[in-house]
């Protein structure tokens, strides 16, 4: 093999420049222009003052000073982090046993089950949130069902317009995101590791705690990340089922580009969210490196 390669140029070296250009063009345009340039614009705008023009005026850090000093933004950011953290925790913890079953117990039903848990992923997010609105509403499904079964006599307002409603709705909406990464991590654990553990006398729980769980951590962290990122910036669910007490950072960003009409400030808030996500990614990377000795 190596002698052949040495006497003859590899196919890759013959690649024609025109082909390369044509193949790199669509992806290059989208990634550099629509992603990097657009994100660069957000960062640029974050350091501008608001004069209602498209790109603002001047060069200022005032927006960030406001974010850092106004307690409102600390409260809302903290609330977003707590809600997204709870949603992530709930999704990952409930998804883990499902992924475990898929990897080790599902047998011939595995493909069908995998298909069933990924299917909701492809249905409308708006409709999934809307479904919870009709479940939790004052005249809604849950209240009427409880009254119908005689569990209580008066409908309660306690379900809708609470942060808890946001957590439940988001956890349901993003549930399918968490299973797949964990399943892939569990499925790629070599079966010989498990056999070795049981041969060396480990009880099933010990072998789970000492072998399976550490080896599946990369999948758990990936799952946590794909749930945390969209939930921390969500503004639809708080608006639909959250009420005023569950305003999240995404809600504030959205209103800066809508009613409040202060784009530079909205851009500054977006930069803060991206920095928070960057921190979370770095922490997850660090944790991944601790556990990820498998590769």
């Amino acid at each position, binding site marked *: 093999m190596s002698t052949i390669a040495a006497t003859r140029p590899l*196919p890759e070296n013959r690649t024609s420049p025109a*082909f*390369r250009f044509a*193949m*790199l*063009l*669509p*992806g*290059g345009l*989208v*990634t550099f222009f*629509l*992603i*990097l340039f*657009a994100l660069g*614009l*957000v960062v640029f*705008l974050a350091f501008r003052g608001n004069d209602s023009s*498209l*790109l603002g005026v001047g060069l200022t850090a005032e927006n960030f000073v406001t974010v850092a000093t106004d307690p409102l933004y600390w409260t809302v950011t903290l609330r977003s982090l707590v809600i997204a953290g709870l949603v992530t925790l709930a999704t990952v913890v409930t998804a883990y*046993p499902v992924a475990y*079953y*898929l990897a*080790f117990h599902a047998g011939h039903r595995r493909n069908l*089950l995998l*298909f*069933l*848990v990924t*299917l*909701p992923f*492809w*249905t*409308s997010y*708006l*409709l999934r949130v*809307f*479904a919870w609105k*009709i*479940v939790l509403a004052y*005249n*809604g*499904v849950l*209240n*009427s*069902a409880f009254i*119908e079964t005689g569990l209580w006599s008066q409908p309660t307002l306690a379900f809708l317009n609470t942060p808890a409603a946001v957590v439940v709705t988001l956890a*349901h909406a993003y549930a399918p995101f968490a299973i797949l990464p964990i399943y892939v991590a569990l499925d790629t654990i070599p079966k010989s590791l498990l056999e070795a553990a049981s041969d060396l006398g480990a*009880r*099933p729980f010990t072998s789970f705690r000492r072998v399976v769980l550490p080896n599946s951590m990369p999948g758990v962290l990936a799952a946590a990340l794909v749930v945390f990122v969209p939930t*921390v*910036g*969500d*503004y*639809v669910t708080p608006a639909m089922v959250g009420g005023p007490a569950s305003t999240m950072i995404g809600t504030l960003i959205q209103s800066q*580009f809508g009613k409040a009409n202060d*784009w530079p400030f*909205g851009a500054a808030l*977006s930069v803060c*969210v991206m920095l928070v*996500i960057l921190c979370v990614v770095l922490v997850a990377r660090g944790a991944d490196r601790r556990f990820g000795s498998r590769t």
Partner: protein
Amino acid sequence: MSTTRTDANAGGRWLGFYVLGYLVFLYLPVLLIPLFSFNNSIQAAFPLQGFTLEWYRTLYGNPALSGALANSLVIGAVAASGATLCGITVSYMDLYGRSPLAATISAIARLPILIPGVIVGISLLILVNLIGLGPSRVSIVLGHILVALPTTVVVMRSRFAAIPKTIREAALDLGASDWTTFRRVMLPLSLPAVLSAFMLSFLISFDEFIVVFFLAGTEPTLPLYIWSQLRFPRSLPTVMALGTVILTVSFVIAASAEILRHRGLGAARRNPA
């Protein structure tokens, strides 16, 4: 030995019940939408008031709704074509381009997973205003290409990676140009994945709300139409009828896409050249 095995089986059975419960939790709230869309009442509440198709009849002859549907179909088809084209080229060059640029593009293409939708939305809003497009259907297409890109790249990349390397090398050794190899060998072999990527990105665009909210001008898409109707309690049943239609179509398209994707992969494994 025998005790641990029965333990494992019992554990598996309990886990099986848990998975069943999980699936019920996953599907039950969504299935309430079709249930109440046939209910003869304005309110989505028990007890059910009797069967009706009235709400489905209100879907007909609604110009705002059919306009939004047409927008969603056109935008979905164009955005899916764009996202699939990018997914094919980005992942092909990532695997076979052997250049840092191709690898960088592929890495950035998957970056939108790590950006909340609201930020994708506002960054594109600034961009399309800057280049003079403004909120419009073209802007929505650009946004949806971006949102669907990670999916198409992942689907196409795993498909290309599953094709045995020797097939491409054989084509090149027999004198086929890069272009011919790509068009006559690699692309036909990955056709199921191309169709799957197209269908999935169409669905992503068709159902997308968070980004489109910022980019729509005077012509709303279907999710925006639904959002605008949610303010009126009286149009709730109509929304549920519409939601049922959308859910049904989504289920059918997603199921076909998944079947295509797995069939393609299976065929590649069965004939490892």
